[in-house]
């Protein structure tokens, strides 16, 4: 168990709690065993009429007294042991979360969100169960089991041994069945996955289904999948359905043996009637630890498997890390150079970028245009090292970017991604984005520059408006302007905008471009845009096609060149003119 080191800290951190909890648990177990003894005394006395009401009331009081103690101790172990497992759950989840945040963008291209979610919830819960219930059930099984058997042995050795014959079968049975159950449960889960996928596919393709009159056939297909799911469930039910009755059967078999042999021994006075009754109680007590034995082993195994899975994620090293010898460098001014940069996504052979060379001096503006899929977004993602280049080098002020610590590199750059990702909090928090030192006046200036201020004023709660998951209450243009304000507020020498005005109307778009333009000269700016008027003012414009730079120059030069840029520009001009009507 390599991954055990993950939960060790929680054991040592809470060791006093755990010890106290275990003492409570053992106390509960022992006290529980005393009650059958009291019952035995009472029965024996009653058999011989050797007792009066006062004697009986003292027995009754013992029972209540012990029950009260059991109650207190039980509260104690539940709080301490289960509480510790909750603590470990919290800690593990924090650990996992912190780690996931360090992983690079390419990791998330490979791993499905759903899987990660499953690790953070299900797997961690499995670990919690294994820790909490595992500890309890194990202690219970050992203490209660040995003590009950001990008491029984004390009463009558031979009878105990014979009566206990079915008990190992309970343990073996529980092990065997729960293994089988686990496997079948896996199959049920798999078919459930199939079912989910089948339903998803049909709803996603509903237009085709309707267009081709496929409704009935699709229903039939789903029916078959659903029936398969039922079959798998019934197979599982055959096991679970026989498991618990069988466990009951085994413990009842012990009772039957007791009834026969114990009854006979009582008749010939080898044991007293009280002993006989106490045996009945002990067998009742033993059933649970025996079943728990089988159950707890599975619980722990499941927890261990989950812990291993979590550990595997934690072992994943982020692709983008500080290179050995990377320096903390601040105060760079923002001269960006691409030298023969090529890039291909891992596990895919097609190069996305091919031999890119760019020199962008501090304070200059670069415009990037090109058809969809030509590599524009990939190109700008390389600068803050969301991905690392496959070959060639990118440098800032002559320093290769891997030589700069990631934190410092990203501090240099204010980046507005294509997808304006907003978080489910207020507008203010989304713009400030943790940058709490910003003054209110600065916030207002930034929102004004992003042409967002007037919109915010229209909201009832202004900056404090909660925008819902991913900003559901906002329009595409509003979301984009929030992302823009966020980028404008970040104090950085390099500004990168990925299609900043795709969602806003023409007029607002022009205003926003003017805002960006006002920063030119002071900051190094890179703008990717499908609306070519947005890059017109740039000192240098490049057009990408299939990962290569096909055109490069100023607006005037490219218009002269009369290729992609010029044609698209004129086309858009007509459209804009038309839309202005």
């Amino acid at each position, binding site marked *: 168990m390599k991954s055990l080191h993950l939960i060790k800290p929680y054991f040592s951190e809470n060791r006093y709690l755990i010890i106290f909890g275990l003492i409570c648990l053992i106390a509960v177990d022992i006290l529980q065993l005393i009650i059958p003894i009291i019952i035995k005394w009472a029965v024996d006395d*009653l058999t*011989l*009429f050797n*007792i009066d009401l006062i004697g*009986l009331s003292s*027995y009754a009081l013992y*029972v209540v007294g012990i*029950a009260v103690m*059991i*109650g207190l101790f*039980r*509260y104690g172990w539940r709080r301490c042991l289960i509480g510790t497992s909750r603590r470990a759950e*919290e800690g593990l989840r924090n650990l996992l*979360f912190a780690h996931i945040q360090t992983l690079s*963008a390419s990791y998330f291209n490979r791993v499905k969100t*759903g899987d*990660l*979610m499953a690790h953070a*919830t299900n797997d961690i819960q499995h670990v919690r169960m294994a820790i909490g219930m595992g500890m309890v059930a194990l202690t219970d099984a050992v203490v209660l089991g040995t003590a009950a058997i001990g008491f029984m042995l004390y009463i009558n050795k031979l009878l105990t041994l014979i009566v206990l014959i079915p008990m190992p079968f309970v343990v073996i049975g529980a092990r065997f069945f729960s293994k089988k159950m686990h496997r079948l449960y896996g199959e049920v889960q798999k078919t*459930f996955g199939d079912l989910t996928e089948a*339903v998803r*596919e*049909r*709803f996603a*393709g509903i237009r085709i289904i*309707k*267009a*081709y009159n*496929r409704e009935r*056939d699709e*229903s039939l297909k*789903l029916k078959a999948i659903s029936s398969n799911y*039922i079959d798998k469930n019934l197979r599982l039910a055959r096991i679970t359905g*026989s498991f*618990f*009755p069988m466990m*009951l059967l085994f413990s*009842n*078999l012990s*009772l039957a043996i007791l*009834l026969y042999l114990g*009854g006979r021994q009582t*008749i*010939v*006075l*080898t044991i007293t*009637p009280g002993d006989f*009754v106490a045996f*009945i109680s002990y067998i009742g007590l033993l059933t649970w630890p025996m079943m728990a034995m089988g159950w707890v082993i599975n619980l722990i195994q499941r927890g261990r498997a989950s812990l291993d899975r979590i550990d595997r994620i934690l072992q994943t090293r982020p692709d983008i890390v500080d290179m050995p010898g990377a320096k903390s460098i601040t105060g760079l001014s923002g001269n960006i150079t691409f030298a023969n940069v090529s890039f291909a996504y891992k596990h895919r052979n097609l190069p996305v970028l091919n031999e890119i060379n760019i020199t962008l001096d501090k304070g200059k503006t670069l415009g990037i245009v090109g058809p969809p899929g030509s590599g524009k977004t990939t190109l700008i993602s390389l600068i803050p090292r969301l991905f690392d280049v496959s070959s060639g080098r990118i440098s800032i002020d002559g320093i290769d970017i891997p030589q700069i610590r990631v934190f410092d590199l*990203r*501090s240099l750059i204010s980046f507005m991604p294509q997808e304006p990702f907003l*978080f*489910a909090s207020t507008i203010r928090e989304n713009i400030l*984005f*943790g940058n709490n030192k910003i003054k209110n006046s600065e916030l207002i200036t930034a929102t004004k520059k992003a042409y967002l201020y007037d919109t915010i004023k229209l909201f009832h709660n202004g900056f404090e408006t909660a925008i819902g998951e*991913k900003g559901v209450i906002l329009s595409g243009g509003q979301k984009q302007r929030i992302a823009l304000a966020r980028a404008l507020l*970040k104090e950085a020498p390099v500004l990168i905008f990925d299609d900043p005005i795709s969602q806003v109307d023409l007029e607002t778009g022009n205003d926003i471009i003017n805002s960006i333009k006002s920063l030119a000269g002071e900051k190094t700016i890179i703008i990717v845009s499908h609306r070519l008027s947005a890059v017109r003012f740039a000192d240098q414009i490049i057009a990408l096609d299939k990962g290569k730079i096909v055109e490069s120059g100023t607006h005037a030069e490219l218009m002269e060149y009369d290729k992609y840029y010029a*044609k698209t520009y*004129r*086309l858009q001009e007509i459209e804009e003119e038309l839309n202005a009507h």
Partner: protein
Amino acid sequence: MRTDFGYFEEKKLGKPYDVKLLRRLYPFTWPYKIFFAGSILLVVFITLLDLSLPYVTKIAIDRYIVPQITPDKFEKRDSAQHKTGHKTGHKTRSLKADMSDPEIKTVVNNYPDLFKIDGDFAYIPFDKLSRLDKKELAVLRKADLSGITGITSIFLAIIIINFGLNFIRIMIMEYTGQKIMHDLRMRLFTHIQGLSIAFFNRNPVGRLVTRVTNDIQNMQELFTSVIAFVFKDLFLLIGIALVLLSINLRLALVSFAVLPFVVYASIHFSVRARDAFRDLRIKIAQINTRLAETIEGIKVIQLFLHEKKNYHNFARLNHENYLTGMKQVRIFAVFMPVVELLGAIALAVIIYYGGGGVIAESISLGALVAFIAYMKMFFRPIRDIAATYNIMQNAMASAERIFQILDNRESMPQPVIGPSSRFSSLEKIHEITLEDVSFGYVTDETVLKEISFKLVAGETVAVVGRTGSGKTTLINLIARFYDPVSGRITINGIDIKNYPTSVVRSKMALVMQEPFLFSGTIRDNIRQGKTDISEEMMEQVLKTSNCKTLINRLPEGIDTILSERGASISSGERQLISIARAFANNPDLIILDEATSYIDSETEHSIQEALFNLMKNRTSIIVAHRLSTARHADRIIVLHKGKIIEIGSHVELIKRKGLYFRFNQFQMSQPSTIIR
């Protein structure tokens, strides 16, 4: 993808018991009434068997192990003393021996001082039995010994039958539950499938999938766990109560004195436990949301160096989850011991009061032991009550959401027609006419304004215009995914609303921008359930749709299974298969939403060719993104802001020097340039 987890609605939960919902579930259970009746019958039997076990033990004790008190032959009893129940030798339990048996007589004669003989019977006090040796005892009590053998056989028979019946009951319950859920799932799926496209636009796929899968699963729990609980445990509780009352009315009533406390504790607890369960679920949902948000927004987080802040937010949420969890732990830590304590009090009452009864000879020793055993059985179901309550509530919330969808009647209105009606089939589409058609997805927002044009058989019409001009909406109306808000669409002069949608669509084929293929073989995807396609026809379809190269490349050929991440075929190749699918349908009208771009340009040419083959001798309406496509059309419709601003052939429109002309001006040299 967050909708896949279906947790965003967690805040809204229904009441645990909603009679209306239960009544609506009732029709689904009706076909399985025999199974229900059977399992209820089984539950009754099983409960009786469960209850009989302690009773059998009681009989064994009373009849054989510790015999009933026989009239005291040693000392005269004083009734006053008896009442106060002094312990001494005033009262003794004696064993009665039948002297007619010669063996027993021998034993009795061996100990004349211990036995008191009264006619045919000899009596010996219990505490003196130990003076006899084991063999003699066995002889003396041989009737008891053989009685034990008999009663053990009964006990064994009961436990084996109990095992069998339990297994059968569980299987029946599971089968019935699964079957009902299957029916409900199919009903829900068919219902959703029949709803209009407008419904699908409003409801994300993930949410709908959750309804059909997870919500139904929750209901399954209701059937297997809750109904099993209600029937089994409730029967057991009532059964135990009845048995206790019949064994000894007074003792039963006295021990029931704890019941009001148990009921109070259970109600109090289940309410608090429910709240704790619910809080915990909401917290987990929030954790999931935050996690999903972080994963999806990881780029922004990393670019803005927001990791630390984000971690603190998460840690705070996670700690809240911990605190809520601890609250639940505390609630359970109180409830479980309280229930146990109440059980122990009941036991104490039985010992004191029942023991008194034994002394007073109003209760047998066996009855007392049975009482103790029954009380233990009594408290078991009570401990599970909170979990059951929670499952119940979950199921009810799911049921509510399921019925909400089933109540949605938003499907395309279908005409009521008989099989002989002239609208029950459509021979051929001769012409399609749009008359003043206006449409908007939401009120106040018109996407199409007073569109009128006629599409004649054999004609190819291209629709051009920039994004958002209403091109896709136009073809959605022709495929009758929506009905116009005003105006009408006619086929051969008859309003398409007069035909069932299936009749209209059987004459059309839709080729979408994003080719949507189902997982399954290529053959199934092309055939679309039409089994009457012969091999030769299929061959023809593959040839004309340019799929031959693809099929030959794949080792499994046409029977290659397409899956989400399976066979490696490109998006262009997927488009070819979707064109083959349209071919196989042999439609009169082709509705084509041209793709803006294909990732692999190699296939682009073969797609163009396949489309050309498809449209040959057919009527087609194309949403064109390439001017080259538009140029080959017989007529071109130029849409702008939902209105037709130009209509005519390529030559006519070029002459007109309008918008289309100006589009073309810049694209002469690059005919495949995309209009964006």
